[in-house]
Structures are given as C-alpha cells and as structure tokens.
C-alpha cells in the first residue's frame, strides 16, 4: 500500500513556538526615560543627600584632634646629620631622643598613637609576597619558608620564624610619653585585628632564628612569646596599601588636657635614612569617620553642589530649549522639527 506523502517537515523545526511573554519578549518592563522631571529630581536628590553627608563628615573630621611630630630629622644631632645611615646602623650609638609637644586642644581618650612612614613601599611586589602564611599559623610547618627568600633560613639552614622580608623589616622605634613628668601608659593590647590574632598567627608558633642573619632589618622578637601575642609584628605584617602609611603603635586611654606638655622619648632605631623615608609620630583621636581627613567631607560638599548646579542648568536648558516629550516631529526624517502642528 502507498503511504500518504503529506509533506513531512523536519520535526525539530515544525513545532509551533509556545506563547509566553518571555519568549515573545513581551514581559512587562519598566522603561525609564530621562524626562525633565526625572533628570532634575535626580540631580536635586543627589545634591540634597550629599550636602548633609558632606557636612557631617567634615564636622567629624574637624573634631578629630591630631598631632604629627616628625622626628627622623629631629633625632639626628648635627654630628650625625651628615651620615645618618652610618649612625643608624651603628649598634653602639645612643639613639634615644627626646622631644616635647604641647597639647593645643583637649584630646579625649582613647588617643591613638601611630607611626607614619613615608616613601616606604610596603606594597612593592617583592615585599608583599615575602611571607609565608602557613608558617605563621601552624607550628608544624615552621620549616616551610617558600616565598620568604632572601630571609628564609639562617646560615645554618635553620628556618627563620617568622620568615620573609616583612617580618625581617619589623619596625623597631619605641615611644615613651611623659605628661607633666608623669609617665603615660601606652596600651599595646588590641592594636591588631582580632581575626589576625586568632587565625593568621598561631598561638603555638614562637619566633625562631629571627634576626640572626648578617643584616638586622629591624626589631627582634621575644622568643618566648607566641606570634599571636606579638601585636607589633601582626600590625606590621598587614602591609600598607600606599607608600606613605600609618601603623598603630598603641593607645593612650586617658585624656590629654589643653596645655599639657607631653614629653616624648623616642628610641630612633629604624633605618629610613637610607632611602629617604620620613618618620612621624601621630597622636590622634578618632570619630566614626576615622582619623582626620577632610577629603571626604569636601568631596561630598563639592559633588552635592555640582549636582544642584546641574539641576539648575538643566532647568534652564529645558526652559530655553524646550522639546516636547515624544514629539515625533523631531525625528530625523521629519525635516522641520518643532514646526509641525
């Protein structure tokens, strides 16, 4: 028997597409259009939001009391000023120096003590990578000194804990404060991130063979204190983002009154003379915005202002050159825009 030859089409394509708003691209859509109303209100809203925020951050930045004392030059007496590097490298010289500072406005505790280094590329790729996180946290892998070259092993091929350039170059200036001949306690607890102490630096990892090499980079560590309590190291190991950076040294929990004369005794040990880095000591209070930084506030005020200005400009533009919304006479193929009635 014959088969009917009704045109069989390839099955794959013969199915009728099913209707759905999705497949027909008819899903309900919100179509934002930059109508004058939208534009002007956007600019206005930005202005209205930004100016108060700017004012708030500017005020809080202003309320921060901050004192910066540059001491790398002060602590060099005239004899050594010519040969600062030799001075600093010499273990025998007395590097203690004293400076004083008068409190200009009242500083509410806690007062944060920072040291600031300039021109110090802690973000240099060689430097950033020169550490071994496994070694820091796990006593079992103290021999793991990958990435730590050239500060990986001592001459006896003993692994250095903590290894690497970062640890090696640990900052070793110290500060002591006297207010009105009374010693101020500097709280050096909790200056590092809790998360670092608990997870990045092991409580059973003790410094070993540290700073025994030919060249001493910086501070030495007490071999009896586990790494997670070496907060200076922890702070230092969180490498800075920019070549000029601050690091927390400690906190003064008391208030400093106006005209308090603060005597600061600095152990000027850290060698920044070699590459022309500055050292500063910063005493600063803090608010919700952080330290003293007027930039955010100014920027917010500026942007808010520009935004309001834009709103005004566009209002004028709409007035001067009105274009009815959706007037098809402006379409390019209609030759006389605005004149079709």
């Amino acid at each position, binding site marked *: 028997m014959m*088969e009917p030859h009704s045109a069989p089409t390839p099955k794959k394509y013969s199915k009728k597409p099913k209707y759905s708003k999705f497949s027909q691209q008819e899903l309900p859509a919100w179509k934002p259009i930059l109508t004058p109303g939208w534009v002007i209100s956007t600019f206005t809203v930005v202005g209205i939001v930004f100016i108060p925020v700017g004012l708030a951050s500017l005020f809080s930045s202003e309320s921060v009391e901050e004192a910066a004392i540059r001491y790398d030059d002060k602590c060099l007496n005239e004899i050594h000023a010519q040969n600062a590097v030799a001075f600093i490298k010499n273990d025998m010289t007395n590097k203690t120096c004293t400076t004083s500072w008068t409190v200009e406005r009242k500083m509410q505790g806690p007062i944060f003590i920072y040291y600031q280094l300039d021109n110090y590329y802690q973000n240099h790729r060689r430097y950033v990578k020169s550490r071994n*996180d496994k070694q820091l946290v796990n006593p079992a892998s103290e021999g793991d000194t990958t990435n730590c070259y050239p500060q990986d092993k001592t001459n006896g091929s003993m692994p250095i804990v903590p290894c690497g350039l970062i640890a090696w170059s640990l900052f070793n200036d110290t500060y002591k404060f006297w207010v009105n001949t009374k010693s101020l306690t500097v709280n050096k607890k909790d200056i590092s991130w809790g*998360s670092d102490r608990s997870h990045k630096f092991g409580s059973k990892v003790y410094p070993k063979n540290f700073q025994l090499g030919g060249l001493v980079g910086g501070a030495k560590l007490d071999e009896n204190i586990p790494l997670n309590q070496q907060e200076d190291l922890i702070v230092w190991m969180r490498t800075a983002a920019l070549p000029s950076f601050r690091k927390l040294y400690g906190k003064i929990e008391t208030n400093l009154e106006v005209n308090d004369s603060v005597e600061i005794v600095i152990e000027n040990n850290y060698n920044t003379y070699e590459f022309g880095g500055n050292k500063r000591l910063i005493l600063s209070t803090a608010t919700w915005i952080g330290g003293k930084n007027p930039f955010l506030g100014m920027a917010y005020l500026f942007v808010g202002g520009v935004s309001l200005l834009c709103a005004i400009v566009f209002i004028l533009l709409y007035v001067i050159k009105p274009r009815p919304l959706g007037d098809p006479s402006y379409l390019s193929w209609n030759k006389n825009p605005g004149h079709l009635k």
Partner: protein
Amino acid sequence: MLDVKLRRLFTLLSNVLGIGIEPVLVNLSKGHAVESFPLLKEGQGRGQGQEQGQGTPMDSHRRSHSNSLLPFEICENSKPHHHHHHHRSRSRFKSGQFDDGFYVHEANARSVYINDPKRTNENYEFTGNEIRTSSYTLLTFLPKNLFIQFHRVAYLYFLAIAALNQLPPLAVFGRTASLFPLLFVLCVTAIKDGYEDWRKHRSDRFENNRECLVLQEHGNFRPKKWKRIQAGDVVKISADEMIPADIVLLGTSDQSGIAYIQTMNLDGESNLKTRFARQETVTAVTSESCGVTGVIRCEKPNRNIYEFAANMEFNGNKIPLNQSNIVLRGCVLKNTDWLIGVVVCAGQETKAMLNSAAAPPKRSKLEIYMNRETGWLSIFLFVMCSAVALGTAVWLVRHKQQLETLPYYRKTYLNLGPHFGEVYRYYGIPMEILFSFLSSVIVFQIMIPISLYITMELVRVGQSYFMVEDMDMHDSSCGLRFQCRSFNINEDLGQIRYIFSDKTGTLTENKMEFRKASVFGKNYESSIPVPPAVKSKRRWKLKSEIPIDYDLMTLLQKEEDPSSEERVAAHDFFITLTACNTVIPVVNGSRPSKEDDGVVSIDYQGESPDEQALVSAASAYGYTLFERTSGHVVVDKNGEKIRLEVLGMHEFDSVRKRMSVVIRFPDNAVKVLVKGADTSMLSILANDKDSVWHATQTHLNEYSLEGLRTLVLASRDLSEEELQAWQSAYAEASTALYDRATKLRHAASLIECKLKLLGATGIEDRLQEGVPDTIECLRQAGIKVWVLTGDKQETAISIGVSCKLLTPDMHKIIINANSEAHCRDLLVEAKARYGVRPSGKGHGNGKCKTVADLGKEEEEDTAPMALIIDGTSLVYILEKEAESELFDLATACRVVICCRVAPLQKAGIVNLIKSRTDDMTLAIGDGANDVSMIQMADVGVGICGQEGRQAVMASDFAMGQFRFLRKLLLVHGHWNYQRLGYLVLYNFYRNAVFVFMLFWYILCSAFSTTSALTEWSCVLYSVIYTSIPTVIVGVMDKDLSQKTLLQYPKLYGAGHRQEAYNIRLFWLTMIDTLWQSLVVFLIPVLTYQNSSMDIWSLGSLWTIAIVILVTVHLAMDVNGWILIMHVAVWGSIFITYGCLIVLDSIPLLPNYWTIYHLACSPTYWITILLVTVVALLPRFACKVASQILWPSDIQIAREVELVVDSGNANNIGIACLTTIGPLIVRTNVDVWGEGQHAGGVVQATRERREIDVAACGWRKRFDTMPITDEVSMQNMFQIHRQTQMRQPQIELYVEFETVEAEGTQNDLEVSDDRNAVYERMNSDSDEDFEATYEAGDEDEDGDVGVETAAENVVVHPSTSQPMNVPRFMREVDLDTMHAPEFPEYSNIGIANLEDGEFWIGMEYSSRKTVVAAIRSYTIARGVDYDVYESEPQTFYAKCKMYARGCDWLIRASLIRKKGCWEIPRYNGRHTCSMGVISQDHSKLDSDTVAEAIRPLVETDPSIKVKSIIAEVQSRFNYTISYRKAWLTKQKSIAKVFGDWEESYQALPWWLSVIV
C-alpha cells in the same frame, strides 16, 4: 606494489587511531586528480560547464561570460570529516557544490566489477562503507580537541598569558588563579565537544551496524552490516528501507525496472522520484538472484547529486548510465517492493557524505569593527606596559645603590651561608625592564576582552532563541519555525541596506495554478466553474480541483470534424502537456491498469511544480496521465487509453530552456513534442509566421503582463530518416561517459527545429501573503529591495508592479542590450538623462561617502527611478568596466529588477554591491538556484518552500515566508544590533576601567606590578562579578517595543548609520573609562591617604567599588527593566559580596577577614557611594544633555512610547492595524451596523463622497476635513504623504445615505470577474431580502428564501473575496478601541451581577466589559438609558427617565493606578419602569446580540435566522426583529471568519473604488 602496501598501512593506521590520516591518503592516491579551479562555472553544473569546448552558437555569449565572475576556489577533494572549530582550515565550498567532473578524463574512471567486490577493491581505490562523522576517538580526544580549540586566537592569548605567569620572575598571580579562566573555558568547550561527538559516535555506530541484504558468494542474499559493504557488492533493498550506499540499479520488483525513492534526507524534497534500472539488466535480476556480471566504469566521487555519469559493460554491450539509474545513500525506497543494485560508491565517498559540509562561516560587520577597536586596545595595553617598564627602569636606576639593602627590595642574600652575596631574583636592569613589561602584560591581560568573545557567543545564542521562538515568524501554513543556522551574524540583520530577493517561491508562493491557455491562437481562461455535465464524465480525481474553460472543453470533445487543424492542434497540445514532462502519477495505491470503473484518485509527483500544474490541468481537460515508465506513457483520453512509446527524452536544461520527448504513437507515427520558454522556442519554430504565431505572441505578452509564467508548446512529425539520425546521435550521446550533456544537446538540436506551434500556457504563481506591505515597509526603512529572477522581463515587471516595487510614477530604465557597446551606451545614456552622479571610485574612502550620498538622494525624492536589466546585458556588464556604470546607476535607482539571470549572475550582482560599498547585503531565496547568492551575501536567508531545502541548507537564517523579513529585520535585527553594539562597547569599558585602575595603582607601588586586589578577584572580575548582567542585558534589553519599530520603519536607519557602535562612540567610551578609572582609584586613595589602611582592605574596597560602578553604569543604560534584569544586575553585586566574603574567610589568604573589618566602618560605605556618583556624574550629565539637544530617533520613539503608554494619547489605534500600513479606512460602526444594505456601501461613497477625514495627531489632536470631491481627496493624500510620520493613519468616517442600488451598479469597475459575480449575487440577495422582509410575513417560505440568500451573501465571500466587508469596519467603536484593556481583570465584573445591581467600587477589566454589563443590566430590567458622557476613560449614563421619576445614573471610569475600570458613582435601582419595550430594545443592538450568538455561529455558520431569534429570546427575553437577527448573524460571521490580514488585502481595492 610498494604504493599499495603503503596505503594499506595508512588505512590500518587510520582505522586504529581514528584520526585524520585519511586526507593525506586521499592526496596520495589522487595526486593529479586534485586540481583547483579558479574559475567559476555557471549554471550550477547542470551540464553547463561542458560548453567550454564546443558550445552551440546560441551559447557563445554565455561562454564568454563563464570565466568572468569571481575567483572561487573549488576544492574537489573535500575532507570528509570537518570540524566545527576548524574554521580557518575548512575549505570554502562556494558554487563548487555542483561541479560535475567534466575535467576528469575517461582514463580516470573507476571500475566496479558487479558482484565482485574483491576484484573491485584490489586497487584500494574505494573506501569501505563505514562512515565516521565523529571527529574524535577516545584516544585522540584530548590532544585533538585541545589542538582544535587552540586554533582560536583568544585561547592562544590565554595560554601565552598563563605560560608567562609560570615563569618565576613574572609570577604575578598564583599559578592556579592564572590558569583558572583558561581551564574553565577549555573544559566547558571540551565537555560540549565531547558530548556532541559522543552523540555522533552513537549515530555512526547505529548507521554502521544497520543490516542490509547482500548477495554472497553462494548466490543468495544474506544480511550484512552496512560497514562491511564494499563497492562492487550487490545489495537488495526492500520497501521503506534506507539505501546504504550509492548504488546503480540493476533491477526492481517492477517489470519495467522502476523504483520510487524519497530523497528527503538529501535535498529535503518530499515527493517521490523515479529511478530506472536499465531494461537490459532488469531481466537478469529476480528477487532472489542477480545474474548480472560486468564492469561499471564510473566517474570519481563528487558532490553533485544531480549528475552521475557511468557506463556498464554487460553482455558485451556498453550501456550508458546516468543520474536516473543511481540511487544515493540516505534515500528511502518507497512504493516498490524491492530493488537490487550494485554499490559504486560507499561510505565517505557517497554523494550524501560529500555533501554534508557546512556553509562557510561568516563574520559579522560589527565583529570586524570590533576587532579594529581591539587593535586599539592592544595599543593601549602596549602603552601601559611600556609606561610601567619605563617607570621600573627609572626607579631602578635611581635606587641602584640602595637595592641591596632596601627593606622592600633586598636584591642580595646577606645571611651568612651558602647563598651569601648571591643575587636574589635580580637579573640586571635590562632584564628587569623586560620582566616588568611582561608581568604588566599579565596584570593587564583583560584589556584585550577575551571574555567578550564568549559573552558574544552566549548573547547570540540567546538572541537566536528569541528569533526562533517568535510566533510571528512561525509559518503556520506549513508549520515551520524560524531557523537560525548561523549564530555569528545576528547583528548584521540590523544593518541591511540591500535585499536581493528571488522571485519564484520567495515573493510568490510557488504553488502553480494553471490559469490560461492559448491553443492554436485562441485564448482560453479557466475561470468559469466547471459545468456539472463535464464534471460527471471525469473519472480521475485530482488532489485539487482545477477550473476549466468550457469552450476549450467543447472543442476537445467535439465529435464532428476530428481532423480540423484546430482540433488536432488542441489534441497535440494536451498530449504534449501530458507526455512531455517527468511527472510520475501515483494512482491511489494500486496499479492503475486494474482500475477501470469508478473514480480513482491520482496524485502527481514531480520535481517541478509547473509540470505538476500542467499535468493536472491536462487531466482536468480529459487527458489523464496515469502511467509512466522509462519506455512509455499511458494517457487516458476521456476513457480511451493511449499508449505512447517514449523513444527518447531530452530533459529540461538551463541552456536550451526547453524539454522534448520523442513519442511513437500507436499508429506508428513519430512525433517530437517540445515545451519550453518562449524565447528559446520561438526561434526554433517553423518559419511561417502565420496568424496563430501572432495571436500566440500577443497572448504570451498578455500573460506575462498579468504575471503568469508562460511556456510555449510545439510539436513536429519526424520522418523516418530524421528519426534514425537522431536515434544514433542520441544513443551515442547517452552512452558517453563524459561530455554527455553537450552531446545530448547536440542530438536534441537535430529534432528541435522547424516545429509547429501548438500554443502556450499561462501558469499563475501567486504572490505570497503580505509581500507588498513588507516591501513597502522595508523600503521605508531605507532598505533597497532588488529582485533577481530567472523569469522574463514582462513577468518580472508585472510582479514588480503587483508587489508595489514599481509604482506608476517611476521612470523605468530598461537595459536590454545584446552587445557590450550597446550596453554601455544604454547605461551612459540613462545616467546622463537622469543626472546620476558618478560615485567615488568605488573603493577606499569613496565607500562611506556613497552611503551618505545615497541617503540624501533618496531624501530628495525627485523622481524615483527603476532599473530593469536582463541577464544578457548583465553578462556584458559584469565582465567589463561597465560594472561601475551599472553600480552608479543601480544605486541611484530606487528599484532594481534583474530578470533572466543565471544563478551565478545573482551572486555576481550581490558581489557587485558587496565589493563596492560597505553596505550590508541580504539575499533571500528558496531554490537551489539561489544558493550561490545566499552564500555570497552578507546575510543569506532561505525560504523553506516548495523547491527543496538546498537554499535552507546554504542559508544563515531560514523561514517560511517572505513577509517575516519585516519582523526579522526591523525588530529582531534592530534589537540584535543595538544589543550587541552596546554589549561590545560595554565590555570594552568594563575591562578597560579595571585595567586602568590597576595601572594607576602600579604607579604607586614603585612600578612593581602589584595588584591590591587579590588574584582571585582579578580573575573572577570578568568571569563572575560582572559577566552575568552583561549577558542578560545583551540578550533581553529592548530599546523600543516591537510595535514602535514596526510602526516607524525608519528607525531601522539607526543600524545604517551605525549608531550603536562606531569609532566615535568607542573613543567617547574610552575617555569616560579613563575618567571613571581615575575616580575609582583616586577617591579611596585620598580618603585613606594618611591612615593605617592595608593593601588588601583597599583592594577589597576597590573590587566592590568597581563592580558597583560598572553595574550601575550598565543599569543606567538599560532601556527596559524586566524582573530578570533586576535580579541579574543587582544580584551580581550580591554575588560579588558573596565571593568576597568566601574569599575573606579563608585564613590562609592574606586578605583574611578584611571585608568584615571594612563593612563596620561608615567611611567604607560613603566612599563607595562617592565613587559611584562622581564616576557616573559626567556620563549622566552628557547623556541628558545630548538627549535634550540632539535627541536620537530612538530616543524620541522611546518617549513616544512613554507618552502612549501613559494612556492619554489615542493616536496609535489598534496595534495590528497600525503595523500593517500607513492608511486605515474605518467606517463608523453605528452607521454601518444599523445603516443600509451591505451591497450599497461602495456606491454610497461614490455617489456622495461624504467622507470625513480625521487626521489624528498626537495627544488627541484631531483634524477633520470633509471629502466631497476629487480635489479634496487628492488633498487628503497629499497631507497624508507629507505628514506620514506624525500622522501614521487617516481615519475615514463614511456617512451613508440611501441610494438607488440599481443605477450605480454598472459604474463599478471591478477587475476581477469573480468579484463581479459575487457582487451581483450580493446585491441580488439584498433585494431578495428587502422584498421578503418588506412583505412582512415571516412564514416558512420567506425564511427559507432569506436563508439561501443570506448564505450566498455571507458564507461565500467571507473566505477570500475583497467584497466582503472587513471585520474592523463593523465593530469599530472608537472609544473602546482607545481605552486600555487590562486582561488580567477579565474575570471580574462578569459574575458579580447576582442580584443584578451594581455597587460603588465595582471593578471591571475594560471599558468594553463595563459597557456590556450596563447594557445587559438595562436590557434585563427592561429600562433604557442615555449616554451622557463617553470618553476613553469614563462612561456616564443616566436613565432615560432621569429627573422624571427615576434617578438611576451610573458612572464608570478608568483607575490608572489599579489598571482597571471602577464604578465611582451609582445611584441605586431604577425607580421607573419603562414597560414599553417588549418587541425590541434599543440597547440590544446587533453588536450585543452578535457577541451573544457568536458561539452558535462558530459551530454552525449556516444557522437559521429563526434560531437566532429564539436564542435571543431565551437569553434576553426580547424578541428581536428578523432584520436585526439577520444583520446580527452577518456580523458574528464576520467576527468569526473575518480577519485583519484579509481585510487589509481589501484595502487597496477599497481605495481604488473610492478614488
């Protein structure tokens, strides 16, 4: 001998390893046969190539043309298994597809020893029948897949970067992180490829393990697996089995050796084709044995499925074999019990396998531009890397002395020990500079947006999904979906400037209908319905009824004077129609000879629809073809069986353009019957140009003017000498192995001369649905439509007119030359006359200018020109420098029609435009003759039509109908282009802003290529953090709705002007990128400049800031927010946070816990906010400013949408109407509904012309003008033309007045006779109706009378006649039309009338439902109301008796917030009772009733009027008048059966009557 061994070794190897040793082998074995042919052969190889040597004089000009065209490469030696990823190495098969191996010499023939596979395969010339479409084996998968994948430059780049990163001095990223993206992409692709290949393996295995009966040594047929079959095997195939290899037929179950096969797998044609076994061998074959031995010498395997040349030595005779003797692999045997044949080509050498190559890959224009910009990005990359390297150099030199001790550099070991003093990772300044350069390349790698390529692929797949799923592009008539065959060029659809369209099957339906015949100088038209007397005599039932001409029928059946010249000519005419073709009759399942009584249904299967139409027509006139074998045909002539012996057949070829058969009649007379194209026929007629000749010539012209396809029929008696001369020539020619076509043509020329003209036929090929509108729409969009057709000039022009390509006001330039000089003169003259400026010299800078100029010229719109040029002229032009003249002229013309063009000329014309402009070209066609054009054009669209799937296989997109082109280009093309253009720019921006930011930071880290961002963030940034919204927006964002795009086709110009992507935008984006990167870098730096911020925290801040910035940037540019986009865009920010949280929770990473620390500080958040706002503020301001000052068309159209959507503008009207065309005629419903009789409408307008034109503008600005006379009508169109854009439609309100129908009847000039007939019936019935109704008695008789009349009026014309009143004219209610509808509420407001009362706060879905509810309420109560206010948004009605004892009032209004209609005011029950309404209710108008009875009408359109009255009575409790019931029925029938498309078809007709 050594050679053989070597080959065997290779075969072994390739079988074991399954890798591509084969190609090497082929090269080895073929050696000299592999020739590359730089010249292009024309005529798709239907024998045309042969004329190289000895063309007939007639062809001389063609021959000179044949080496003219493009330097295509033809790769004879196709590699059987190609790879998808192997783009570059894939050979391009252009028109080489159909090369017939005419250049292979007889000596190269391969010998197949029948039933002796061993001997056949001695020389290892043949491959086995095992096929392998898969690319890999288990062993080779990994290396081969990787090898193929790394052919992509992108992957190589990835690889190079990853490799660089493995070098110790350069390890910027961790090793895993840097390999991650590459591995990811490789794995995904490999898995995809592996899966695909596994499926191929599975299907291959299935194919190879199929079984087939093969004649074994013991002389009987035993099953054998396909893969074991070899050339030379004799196989037996049973019905419905698939053919395992290319086999030469030896015998079939049919005595005459016919086999019916279905070739759908090969060419997609579903009809049956016949193949013949040679008579000589048939007798030697039985169903159980095969006694044929001998040698078949056949040509080398080639891809041409329409040609086969071989001969067979059998019993000492040399028997010719041709295409009709071979059955190809993949075909299915049908309708034949079995066939036996010998395998000549197996496995990969079969034509089916050789043809399975994919179309050459195309690259989109946007992508080409994109690559140019990628070049720019590479330059940026280089500059940045150089800057870093330079900085390093300076820094190193300056710090040279300190390097040893710098705490952060420390270049030497200073610890005592073995390494003391050694330099640590320091290679000297020059090397350090180099390393610094290389490592910055690694850091900045994503500057080259490799992920963009992957994103684009994804987006294109998504876009293709939407195109395929589009219901508007689904061809419901043949159930075909849109197909995307190429995924690379979606966006090109948005930039098409030229469309090259085939005519037959593309513009027209290619459903042939026999319409007119000129027999012996007399014209007959088959338009009168068949008289029953004639009908009854017919014993053959055809698939479709064919109307016949009664006069011709009488002439044929005239008993007296059977030998009159006219009678004989008519007889011969139909014999020619019946015999001179290749149609196969398929008679109702059984052998035709047994059916002597009763009506037998017959189905004609043929390769050409023309022939089918002709044979069917002949059958309608009593000459039924019901048996055809290779040796004879049997014709049933009104019951008398005539057996005609076919002595030979010269099939149709494109050179001769005719076909002839030599027939021996039962009375031993021998005749040659010829049919062919008129040009080729008129030259070979006998010389006397008698009256018949002239009359026929006139008829031919008339036919072609009507757009009919014409064929001329002629015949001649052959004398015995002539017969013998021809027979010997024919026998020799048909056994020739090579050059057969030329020899056959020569033989044909012996008898095809001095013919006697019999007549001509006119076959109608109807225009496809919606073609004129589509063309109009495309033209408005600035697309030029060129028609390239093989038809003759008159037909082409008439089709051009009917599809609105040509308009009467055009200057037609007709180039119709027969010499080169003449041609050039014509061109130059035309150019001079119409002032065509020569365009720039074609190439280089001139290119772009041309486009702009063209645009302007078009705008100027002085006098549109149309160029009509024929193929002969094109031969001269395309070959010589006249090409540029043609180009100038053609591009200045609005329309170009090329007629009589050969397939390759089509490609030549496409190439003419393609090579001289930058404009995108699209070719659309449906047949094999369009393949070259489709492949040549930038975008090829195939129509799945009647002519098989060749065009579809070669195309990039395939669809069912020409009209889908409108949506494809204007909507999908526009979207695709806009989306992809934005996508590319955005991707450039997204990656560049990130890289710039890294760059700024590196400047702050002593040029040490440190990245503050963790390596994982760097890697994941473009892979995860920002990729998803890019893809989603790229797939789904819509700048404009489909409605708007279709309404304003000119919006398509955005693609022409390259608005979405151009070099200017690129630079603007880059400037913006620079600014944004600076902002995103500097603000955090300044914020945290003197703080204890560590590198990872700042990096984390940057990561988030840049992700948010980039995402908000994207969000700012999204045009239409749908839910998915919200999820993707905002979700990607959350995903980023999620990733950061995960990454920051791993204690071993240096960035441990940073995000938690940051999130606690408000500074962090306000910094991010500041970054985002500051970075985007300039962009936003510029965007707003440019939209105010220089609004783009798209912008304005978007605003228009907004205005329309917000509902206070009523200018759009009904969506489907506005999409159809610019002009809409409407009549007011009430006038129509309750007005005068149906037939009177046209006359009324003609008489009185009381037409108001409401030119509705935006926001309800209506201008009305009365149309009273010719002038005001002209005026109206004038205004319309000028303001077309602003006022997309004109509404015509027609006011009717009573008119004497009789007098005006004759004024109607209706072209179509059938219309007149129906019209007469229509008006008659109206009179009948009036008469009956006026008589006032509704008795049984009257009812019946009306019933028949009504049936005549309504049912007949409602299907297709333009006379039928379009649906929209009846149900138009302007207010409801404009009132927005809210379908989601549709279920409320219907059931809440339990107690029948309204209450305040009731909700309805639409205005319609409110009004309907009020109406039915009123009707049910027997009261009535007056409408006080009827606005689009409110409806306010009061009781008719309001203030006269009743205070019923109701107010309904649209609540925009809820999107529904609510009743805010309602004054309780009616306190009146009208009481008077009993017979009829004024609100119970025919519309209401029509809606109510619609289900009834739907089920039974011929429902009696009485039943309607009864139904209404039962539902509304009213007795409506008979008259109303009748009108009602008409209305609902129109509602049920009418449809918008049809009514639009009627529009031109309406207008022509009105004007």
